[in-house]
């Protein structure tokens, strides 16, 4: 597809997502309380959007991933959080 066609298809949807993202960050910034590793990871992952290649999605996912390679001794529970806590 041509770039213009893709923008016709997806621009409005992603414009809305971009504003939602900005409003989410404003909301978190306005709130009281301690820093949270998830928000730090989120802001770190945001930097990947500035990449000049077309690998942004991959690198955002990598940025939010557990970088270790060995199995852990025991599962602490069943759920995942969405960001890696060192």
């Amino acid at each position, binding site marked *: *597809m041509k770039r213009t*066609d893709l923008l016709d*298809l*997806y621009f409005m949807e992603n414009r809305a997502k971009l504003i939602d993202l900005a409003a989410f960050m404003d909301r978190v910034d306005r709130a009281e309380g301690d820093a949270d590793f998830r928000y730090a990871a989120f802001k770190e992952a945001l930097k990947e959007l500035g990449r000049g290649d077309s*690998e942004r*999605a*991959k*690198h955002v*996912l*990598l940025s*939010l*991933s*557990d*970088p*270790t*390679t060995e*199995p*852990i*001794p*025991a*599962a*602490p*529970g*069943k*759920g*995942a*959080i*969405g*960001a*890696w806590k060192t």
Partner: protein
Amino acid sequence: MRYIEPHGHMVSRTTDDYRDMVTAGCACVCEPAFWAGYDRSSVHGFYDYFCQLTDYEPKRAAKFGLPHYCWLCINPKESEDVGLAKDVIGIIPQFLDRPNVLGIGEIGLNKNSRNEMQVLEMHVDLAANHNQLILVHTPHLEDKLKGTRLILDVLKSDSRIQPERVIIDHVEEHTAQLVLDRGHWAGMTLYPESKCTGARAIDIFERFGSERLWMNSACDWGVSVPLAVPHAALEMRKRQWTAEKIDSVIYGNPIRFMSQTPKFKSPA
């Protein structure tokens, strides 16, 4: 339009979902064994679940004219209890001859623990001993990359496993290439809040090729959309895919993978 839902946890869905899927063109549904949302307390709970997957649910689907297949295992979310897992794996062979059983799945990892790894190896051994296809679940969110790498290494270390007879599910942009490079099939799960959206799944098809990739809704008891695959097909049309190409991906690809077992009868 016709399509196959290769990963749907139909025991958690309503008859309305069956009706809507068939209305949208679903030609058959395949149901991997899953976690119930709570831990089953004994091997007897699994025995009953396997009876449900191989006897009752196919009859429920048949009321809507929909062929139903399944995969059997103890899910990675219940793999921390290795003793229970051994008991459950011990009763699976008595179900493998049932006509709708396609293989072992969805096995894999959840939190990437040592016990989960041990149970994964036991499942791979079971599949190899009984010449079964394998469907693999990869972990969620931050655990996916590491879990995918560990799973790929377990599969590679068993020389009896033919890579093309294994589908590794829930791939995303950071894991698709790892899976395809090992010769496996890869599945993309279309979820509203995690895993893939339809638009991203189409990106992955366009970037990595559609030779060994499928899409599924993985609809279950959580937030999920049973019609996610036909919705993605609609998005493919907007992305100027031809009807033939859409059909080859949402109908042809699941048939090509699952036809590796003679149990699977092509809906056509």
